C-alpha cells in the first residue's frame, strides 16, 4: 500500500489536483460562476420589468449615446486583450512587460469607468433619470438600469483596485504567474458581463433619427 502511494501521489495525500489547476484559480472560477448567476438574475429582472411595461422607454439616441457605449465596449474589449498579453508575459517570466500590459489594461478599464460615469451624469443631470423616477413615466427603467450598470461598474472599479495590487506586487518581484492569471480571469469576466449588458440594455433601447 505505502509503496503504491509513493509511486503515484494519492488523492488522499493532497498530491493530486483533480482539475489540474491551483486552488486560487479554481476558487476564482467558483466565484465567477456564482457572480454570473447574480448578473443573470439582474438581467432577467430587467427583462421582466421591460416585458411587463409595454411603454418601456427607449432613451438612447443612436448618436451620441449608442456610439458612446460602443466606444466603452471597445475600451473594455481591448483591455481584455492587453490582460491576456500580461498573463502571457508573466508565464514567460517577463515581469517588466507584465507590469506594462497590466497598466495598459487599467487604462482601458479606467477609460470605461470615466466614460460610463459621464454618461450617468448626463442621464441624471440633463435628462432627469434617477432610480426612482424619470421623464418617461416608467420608474422601473431607472431602478433596473442603475442597479445593473452600477453593479457592473462596481466590478470594474474593484478590478482596477485588484490590478493595482497585482501590478505593484509583480513590479516588486512578488506573485507568481498563477496570481496574474487569476486576476486576468476576473477581468475577462467583467468584460464578458458587459457583452450581455451592452446589447440587452443599450442596443435594445436604441432610437434612430
Amino acid at each position: 500500500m505505502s509503496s503504491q502511494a509513493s509511486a503515484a501521489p494519492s488523492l488522499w495525500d493532497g498530491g493530486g489536483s483533480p482539475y489540474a489547476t491551483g486552488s486560487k484559480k479554481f476558487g476564482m472560477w467558483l466565484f465567477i460562476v456564482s457572480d454570473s448567476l447574480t448578473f443573470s438574475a439582474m438581467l432577467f429582472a430587467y427583462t421582466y420589468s421591460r416585458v411587463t411595461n409595454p411603454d418601456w422607454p427607449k432613451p438612447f439616441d443612436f448618436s451620441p449615446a449608442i456610439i458612446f457605449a460602443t466606444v466603452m465596449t471597445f475600451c473594455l474589449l481591448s483591455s481584455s486583450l492587453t490582460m491576456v498579453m500580461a498573463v502571457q508575459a508573466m508565464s514567460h517570466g517577463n515581469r517588466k512587460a507584465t507590469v506594462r500590459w497590466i497598466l495598459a489594461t487599467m487604462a482601458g478599464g479606467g477609460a470605461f469607468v470615466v466614460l460610463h460615469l459621464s454618461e450617468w451624469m448626463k442621464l441624471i443631470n440633463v435628462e432627469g433619470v434617477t432610480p426612482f423616477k424619470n421623464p418617461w413615466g416608467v420608474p422601473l427603467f431607472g431602478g433596473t438600469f442603475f442597479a445593473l450598470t452600477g453593479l457592473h461598474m462596481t466590478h470594474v472599479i474593484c478590478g482596477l483596485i485588484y490590478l493595482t495590487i497585482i501590478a505593484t506586487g509583480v513590479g516588486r518581484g512578488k506573485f507568481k504567474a498563477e496570481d496574474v492569471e487569476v486576476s486576468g480571469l476576473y477581468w475577462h469576466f467583467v468584460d464578458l458581463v458587459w457583452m450581455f449588458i451592452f446589447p440587452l440594455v443599450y442596443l435594445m433601447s436604441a432610437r434612430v433619427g
Partner: protein
Amino acid sequence: MSEYVEEVHAAGTTGTYIKVWIALLAMTGVEVLLAYEQVPTLIMLTALLGLSIIKAALIIAYFMHLKFEKLSLFLTLFPMLIFCIILMLIFLGDATRIPHMRPGF
C-alpha cells in the same frame, strides 16, 4: 503541483488572441449595425442574444483559457450554471401576462 504551470505555456499564441479580439470587435460591430437598422424586436433580440453567447464563449474559451484546461473543470462549472440560468426563464410567462391583466387593456 508543477503540472498546471506547464498548461500555461501550452496555451494559445499572440496571433490567436488578436484573431479572437478582432472577431469580438466584428460581432460588436454587427450588433451596433442591427440597432442602427431598427430590426423588428423579436429578430433583434434573437440575433443579439445569439451573438452575445458566441462572444461569451470566445472570451471563456480563449481569454479565460478554459479551452486549454481539463474537461473536468468545464463539466464541473458550466452545465449547472447554464441550467440555473435557463431556470430563471420560468417566470417569463407571468411577465408577458401582466400587461393584459391591467385595467384598461
